[in-house]
């Protein structure tokens, strides 16, 4: 059984009278990618800042591999690596200098091979402010993983990145996970969380409103699948056989049906198409995504 890497127990963070995080309990196992989701103001940043040792919890306990972030700052720097949402680097520092500087503070030999791994070799002597957004995020990631920390905290790691850079960063995260690194990722990108995270917690007004694997979370919702159908003769036009069947407002050639039992409904539709001597061109069954479940959670009807 995997050991606990990060334990957050009865954690409360208050700013004056305002409670940002209210009795949070999360356990992250070693080698797990754990997603922290929630709308703005949900308490993600406060939680991350307490994990990073930048703030002190009002109440409760935070433990990262035996290190208390509020008290053991010296040990914490070797235990965690952090990619901050803000730049976090001086405008005129070059990637080469940044590796030198942070390696010196971690008392390790500079590992310039990371520049090659993250496609920054050609930019190693370019000032940080002259790098593109994607290059800046990649350099920030290098700073987070430079000292091989067992726990990495990533705050919106792919925010503002193009598709190629996102895919590259996802590959690096999965590579780190395969080596046993624990990753806590705060993101607004549900597709990213669904793809990468082993488990996610959805925070709302400082409380966890859902916790589990992305599949568990989507299954625990309304669990309505969307069936989209396109036929040669459009035999579904005007039919009253299926109560909720309606034209797709976006793609007019398709009909769509929201179903709790997609298997049974698909068979009925196929039988009807056959009965009408029509031919099926396309059939799609889409399960509810994490994003849809997330929206259900934060905007309950």
């Amino acid at each position, binding site marked *: 059984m995997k050991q606990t890497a990060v334990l957050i127990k009865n954690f409360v963070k208050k700013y004056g009278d305002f409670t940002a995080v209210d009795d949070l309990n999360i356990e992250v196992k070693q080698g797990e990618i754990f997603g922290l989701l929630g709308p703005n103001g949900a308490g993600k940043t406060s939680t991350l800042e307490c994990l*990073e*040792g*930048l*703030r002190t919890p009002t109440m409760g306990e935070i433990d990262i591999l035996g290190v208390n972030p509020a008290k053991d*700052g*010296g040990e*914490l*720097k070797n235990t*965690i690596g*952090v990619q*901050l*949402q*803000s*730049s*976090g*680097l*001086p*405008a*005129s*520092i070059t990637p080469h*200098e940044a590796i*030198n*500087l*942070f390696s*010196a*503070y*971690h*008392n390790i030999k500079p590992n310039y091979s990371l520049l090659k791994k993250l496609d920054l070799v050609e930019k190693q002597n370019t*000032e940080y402010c002259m790098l593109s957004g994607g290059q800046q995020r990649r350099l920030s990631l290098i*700073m987070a993983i430079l000292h091989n920390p067992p726990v990495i905290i990533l705050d919106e790691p792919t925010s503002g990145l193009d598709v190629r850079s996102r895919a590259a960063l996802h590959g690096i995260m999965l590579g780190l996970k395969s080596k046993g690194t624990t990753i806590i990722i705060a993101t607004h990108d549900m597709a990213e969380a669904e793809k990468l995270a082993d488990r996610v917690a959805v925070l709302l007004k400082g409380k966890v409103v859902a916790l589990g694997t992305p599949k568990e979370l989507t299954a625990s919702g309304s669990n309505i699948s969307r069936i989209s159908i396109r036929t040669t003769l459009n035999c579904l036009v005007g039919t009253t056989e299926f109560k909720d069947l309606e034209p797709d407002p976006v793609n007019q050639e398709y009909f769509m049906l929201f179903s709790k039992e997609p298997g049974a409904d698909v068979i009925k539709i196929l039988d009807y198409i056959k009965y009408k001597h029509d031919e099926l061109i396309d059939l799609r069954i889409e399960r509810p995504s994490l994003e849809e479940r997330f929206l259900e959670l934060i905007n309950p009807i």
Partner: protein
Amino acid sequence: MKAFITHFVFDLKVGLRDKTLLLMNYLLPLGFYVMMGLVMTKINPGFAENLVQAMTVFTILAGTALGMPNIIVSGRELGIFRSYKINGVPAISILGIPALSGIIHALIVTTIIVITGPLFFGGIMPKNLLGFLIVFFAMAIAATGLALLIGVISKDSRMTVLWSQLLFLPSMLIGGLMMPSNILPASVSFFAKLLPSTYAMSAFKSLAYDQPADYNVGGSLAVLFAGGLVSFLLALYLFKWDNNDVSKFKKSALALLALLPYLVGAIFL
């Protein structure tokens, strides 16, 4: 120690690479020095006697009061200090390294002024170089401490301009750079003695040029070193890793304690 040296070397390079710092550390003081050497010495030939020491003090003030506070504010605003904290960079390095590199840059410009002032503009070479260096470091430490404190207590870069000008402009006008402090009216003279430049210009006279000082030399140096130390300790105490640390901003009034050594000097010297 290796980390401190690596950080210090990087910071020295930034002082030349960053356009704002290059302006404050080199271009502004050297440009102003050349202008004063060409124009002011013609208008007021007596100014040539003060040229080297006045432009040295100006160099220190430009690099510290005008250049340094923004480094602190932008470091805080851009999350650079948060990143430093996470990676184990101590607050004393964050404040101490820009202070040290600022002093090095000022020393380089001062060396240029000391050598070229007598050659090109009729300035006077210090008779006692060691004395000159002692006063230089005392003034640099005092001004650096105040500049760091301004950066630490300023919420944003607009506030740094306000606080910096409160130090810089009076220093230029009544701090002994443009005219001797001893010709100021008594009421203005009291306020002049709240400024580090007044003590530095007086100490230069005695320690570097073997002339009678306006104020007790030992007392002047003590005020400058004590002022620098108190300011630095206050800056360290009030230092914030980010702008969310509201409790420290509430304590900003404590920064006024930095004036204490100067107040003592104004009363007793």
